[in-house]
């Protein structure tokens, strides 16, 4: 095979920030304009060469076209460029990396910097270049770290393997976040375990930003006694900056702080008991039912594992090309934003009903059985039936708010699609890719972090939260025990035996949650996987650039890969073997053309519904 096998040992070859305003006069040296250059060991004259030439040529092109340069290709490197006023960022990758991904990486990097430091100009006035250099380095290394090449292609969020974790733990994590949100100063939160998202209330883009800080500290040696309840050692905080749209988005999420009071009377006790009695011990019955009968088990799936259920909800309509959110069938989330209490009630009923009928089997186990896992719930809600009630409700809200986000994003992006129909859009379809942190005013917020060994609770809070001792203590104490419990459980989860390679490879990208499901081992540069990864990256770029494209099959001598996408997801599938007999002539018996059928069939058991 004449193909170029390029292990992504380093995702980014060059990155620099160049400030043209410092190099104005004839006598000014290029090096004065270099704010940061990666790799830092690059000889200075080469740094100057790259910065000077790229900035010069970039400015010239920008003037000719009266628009900033976005992409600059060399024979061996592909640079994503961002120009704002006199500042120029350039991030160079190998030309093998698709343009979409390079641009996305640069946007992520700049957005990260602005999230933790505020506007670039301003932070360079406040801090020394060395301090900020170490930050750029930290963010770069975070973005390049560990994850597989597939994850780089989609720039997706690293989540815990939801198929391997008890869904109740995910629920529990969501509940912890709900509880914290009852403090009015808490905007939203996210729980991360060993660098992987367990549960989040924020958009994937915002969650990714939190991850940096988390993983940065996570890699440092752990405090021997992380559980120590000495308030200060496990808890830290840092200033962060949100863009207006991010803030608006968080605030628009209907977290109705006193919603519980009027919704509680509707609940009926036996059901609640059933609800609460779901414990770790009886999960097998419910998880078993998921793959075998995805249709009817949608609501419990939804209840137990948001990750899985999201995908199945959306994938139920693979041919969907309209930008509208999926049709509101009863167990599915309410779609419109804003108040919808009547809908909610009816939804709740069907919701409970389906849950009840489905979970009947092993659900009668007594409350006592789950003490270890759920004992601390009483802290949250005052215990007893009311507590359960509140929790019940809170969970609904969690679902609700989450779904609202989803639908919001769907419709938001959908609009973009419709409008940009005629125009090729090379820009990545990320909501915050279009923001220009240098221009828009950033709103200071605080990131509150509570660490329990490998587990981190990250909350976005109003800045005066830190001075509000009572709120802080409330949040701390209300979540402490739950976090300990969650950590203990997550820690005990065996790292999941990677399934036998199987006769096929797939990758399923959920564009809404920005998560990736794949049976591909994370090993870099696995030779048999290369064709799949290469095809996926090509197809993903094609999908990004062609709004109307729904499915594609492409075949080289060695591999045939099927890709399909809807508004909410992209799925890629490759079957091993069976290609040698093909001559490349059109032939309907060709195995490549049976890929769509096989993908639909095979991926069901991974929770991917392509029907």
């Amino acid at each position, binding site marked *: 095979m*004449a193909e170029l096998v390029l292990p992504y040992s380093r995702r980014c070859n060059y990155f620099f920030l160049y400030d043209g305003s410092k190099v104005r006069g004839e006598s000014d040296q290029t090096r004065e304009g270099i704010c940061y250059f990666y790799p830092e060991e690059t000889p200075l004259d080469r740094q100057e060469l790259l910065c000077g030439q790229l900035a010069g040529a970039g400015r010239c092109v920008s003037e000719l076209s009266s628009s900033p340069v976005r992409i600059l290709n*060399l*024979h061996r490197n592909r640079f994503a460029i961002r120009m704002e006023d006199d500042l120029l960022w350039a991030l160079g990758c190998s030309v093998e990396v698709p343009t979409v991904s390079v641009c996305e990486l640069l946007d992520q990097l700049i957005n990260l910097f602005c999230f933790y430091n505020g506007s670039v100009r301003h932070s360079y006035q406040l801090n020394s270049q060395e301090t900020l250099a170490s930050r750029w380095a930290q963010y770069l290394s975070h973005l390049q770290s560990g994850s597989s090449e597939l994850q780089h292609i989609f720039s997706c969020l690293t989540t815990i393997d939801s198929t391997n974790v008890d869904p109740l733990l995910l629920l529990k994590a969501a509940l912890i976040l709900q509880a914290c949100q009852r403090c009015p100063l808490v905007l939203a939160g996210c729980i991360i375990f060993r660098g992987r998202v367990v549960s989040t209330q924020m958009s994937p883009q915002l969650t990714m930003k939190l991850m940096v800080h988390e993983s940065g500290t996570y890699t440092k040696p752990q405090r021997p006694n992380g559980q120590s309840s000495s308030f200060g050692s496990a808890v830290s905080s840092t200033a962060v900056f949100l863009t207006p749209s991010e803030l608006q988005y968080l605030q628009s999420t209907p977290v109705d702080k006193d919603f519980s009071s009027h919704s509680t009377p509707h609940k009926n006790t036996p059901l609640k008991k059933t609800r609460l009695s779901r414990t770790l011990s009886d999960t097998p019955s419910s998880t078993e039912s998921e793959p075998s009968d995805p249709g009817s088990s949608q609501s419990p799936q939804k209840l137990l594992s948001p990750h899985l259920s999201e995908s199945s909800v959306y994938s139920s309509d693979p041919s969907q090309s309209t930008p509208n959110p999926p049709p509101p069938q009863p167990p599915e989330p309410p779609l419109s934003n804003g108040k919808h209490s009547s809908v909610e009630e009816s939804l709740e009923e069907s919701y409970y009903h389906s849950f009840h009928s489905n979970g009947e089997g092993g659900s009668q186990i007594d409350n006592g059985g789950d003490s270890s896992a759920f004992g601390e719930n009483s802290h949250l809600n005052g215990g007893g039936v009311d507590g359960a009630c509140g929790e019940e409700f809170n969970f609904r809200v969690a679902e609700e708010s989450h779904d609202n986000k989803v639908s919001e994003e769907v419709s938001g992006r959908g609009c973009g699609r419709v409008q940009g129909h005629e125009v090729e859009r090379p820009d990545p379809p990320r909501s915050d890719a279009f923001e220009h942190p240098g221009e828009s005013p950033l709103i200071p917020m605080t990131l509150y972090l509570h660490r329990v060994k490998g587990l981190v609770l990250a909350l976005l809070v109003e800045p005066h939260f830190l001075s509000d001792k009572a709120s802080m203590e409330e949040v701390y104490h209300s979540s402490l025990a739950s976090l300990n419990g969650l950590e203990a459980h997550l820690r005990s989860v065996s790292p999941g035996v990677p399934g036998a390679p199987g006769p096929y490879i797939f990758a399923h990208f959920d564009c809404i949650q920005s998560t990736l499901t794949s049976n591909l081992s994370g090993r870099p540069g696995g030779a048999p996987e290369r064709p799949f990864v290469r095809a996926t990256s090509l197809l993903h770029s094609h999908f990004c650039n062609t709004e109307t494209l729904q499915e594609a099959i492409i075949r080289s*001598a060695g591999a045939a890969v099927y890709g399909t996408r809807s508004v909410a997801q992209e799925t890629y599938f490759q079957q091993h073997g069976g290609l040698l007999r093909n001559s490349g*002539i*059109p032939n309907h018996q060709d195995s490549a053309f049976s890929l769509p059928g096989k993908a639909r069939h095979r991926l069901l058991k991974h929770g991917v519904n392509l029907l």
Partner: protein
Amino acid sequence: MKCLLISSQSAEVLFHWTDPEFYQNVQAQYVSSQEDGHGLPAFEDSISTLFAPIIISCITMVDRLGDSYTSFTTENNHIYVLHQFDECLYIAVNGDGEEGEGDLRRKIYVMKKMIEVMFGMVTLSSNLLKRELRPQDTEQRARLWEHLQSLLETYSHLRENDQSFLVEAVERLIHPTLCEQCIEFLERRLVQQLNSSVERAGEEVLHAFILVHTKLLAFYSSRNASTLSTSDLLALIIMSQNMYPSNTDQDDPNPEDIESTSGSGPESFYTPEPSPTDMDSRSSADMPVRESTPLFEFVDPDVQMAEDSLHTLEVPPPDPSTPRRVFLEVSLKDGLFPMMPHSMYCLPLWPGITLVLLTKIPTSAVAMSVYTFLEAFAKLEKRLNEGQEGPAATRGQPTIHDIRSKLDKFIKALGASEIQSAQLQNVWTDFKNRIGRGGPGFNRELIHSCKNMKTQLCGVYRQCFLIESGTADSPRRLSPGLQERAQTMVQDKLMDWKDFLLVKSKRNITMVSYLEDFPGLIHFICVDRSTGQMIAPSLNITERNVSELGKGPLAQFIKSKVWSLVSTTRRYLQKGYSTVTLRDGDFYFCYFLWFENETGYKLEAGDIPVLPDDSAPIGMLAWDYYRKLLRYYSKNHQGEVVKCYELLTVHLGVIPTEVILQHCRQLASKLWEPSRNPLL
């Protein structure tokens, strides 16, 4: 917003073409930067100033980083593609979204191909080529650029509207009986008669073909001629279209067509060969003018060759019987010779129908010798550059000793002719002295010497073939009378068919004949890459001519889908994918590339090389990708004739995939059968 610029490394404009929008954009930038506003600089200077930073940065990057720009994209989707051939930097720009990066790169390569066809091996010496592309005389320069600009516009128009230029393969008129009759006529009557005439002045007709618009009615090659490559044939079709544009305007009042072809009417064509009669007087008369314009004048002492000869290319007279000098590839049993001189006679029969004659000129053997020497010096230079020691390098194949005596003889023969070869003689003597010497710095000096030899050889070649060498009273060409006779003969032959042919060329094959057998099929293109021919239902989208696709926006939409499908599949092919199916909106697209042996047996799919993004465009016009692909594939099929086919189909999306694939299979096996008559 389109532009194509060729620049030297010192940011000197060697050629530029812009559309009106880009022109205005450049002027506007100049107005804003020049506040005093007294008089805008010449456009050429403005464009040079605006692009200079990019050009200089490009050169710096190559020098210091060994890497250089291939493209820029701005946020408002302006695309700049850059490519450097030797010392000439090509920059193509698009700011209206009509062309992608691939299209621009293709345009650059096509421009280079056209320059090669026009200037032959002179393109191998950057110094000479620079002078050729930028004549000192401004009037002459304007004329040359106008000609190149109109060629480029003709090409762009064809690429945007003609399927055969979309896929870069020749389309034949499907009418087997008439085709056969015509071929026979060309062979038995026309070519025989021409080649036995005394008025042919030593020229020999090698190829003769009849074009109806861009489609080939008949093609005949004489027995001792080598095959004409598809790349050259396509380039010749562009040239003939440029001379005699198909007046699609007559039945197609599409303003676009008028705009893009209006500048290339027959009255504005350009002939590089000067009239022998007034050559001397003009060249001396223009001397002072040239000296008074030392624009970026740069004289390399090594290139001080036969200075006078460089200035003889002067104002050409618009004599329609003067043939065009074209440089085409010739493959003989002793090897492949690129850029061999031919004369091209383009004889209009009726509007839209043209007879093209390609003749071998009597001195073409000189070109072969020059090419052999050039190749030898190039190889030696390469070995020296790779660090081989001088004496060892000279012993490589072919050895300098091999060519030594040949070159001595060659120079001696030149001395007897009217070609100025004193400079070549000097440089050769110097080279021979040097090679015997050795010592420190030997390699570097020898490399320098090699370069000099190459330049001098190109110079001799230029004198021989770019400048008319006949004497005043007996120009070396088929006599005007003979040309006229040829024209009349073919006219008589085709008189009754003329109107039929003009209609046929617009509706060569139509989808109607396929609808019954292939329900749901909207369009297809089938290409035989081994012969460089294609078949596709006509896609004429004009106001008055209604095709089966209907007219107006729907037909335009399908056309744009077909065009984008071709560029998409090329991108996948570039990355090694030979089968692509796409469900896009309401359509289902298929693309297949496969190999067969001579008997039609389907060969197994092989590896297709994976190429970088900035590699030469996939096609046959500028750079024959498929020839290389066939060579690559044939490595595993020694002793077998391998053929390569492509099929693209557009179906309605509602048709089940199995049916679509069955259609494709039937089309693939059926298409070439009924019309398997040897044409090329």
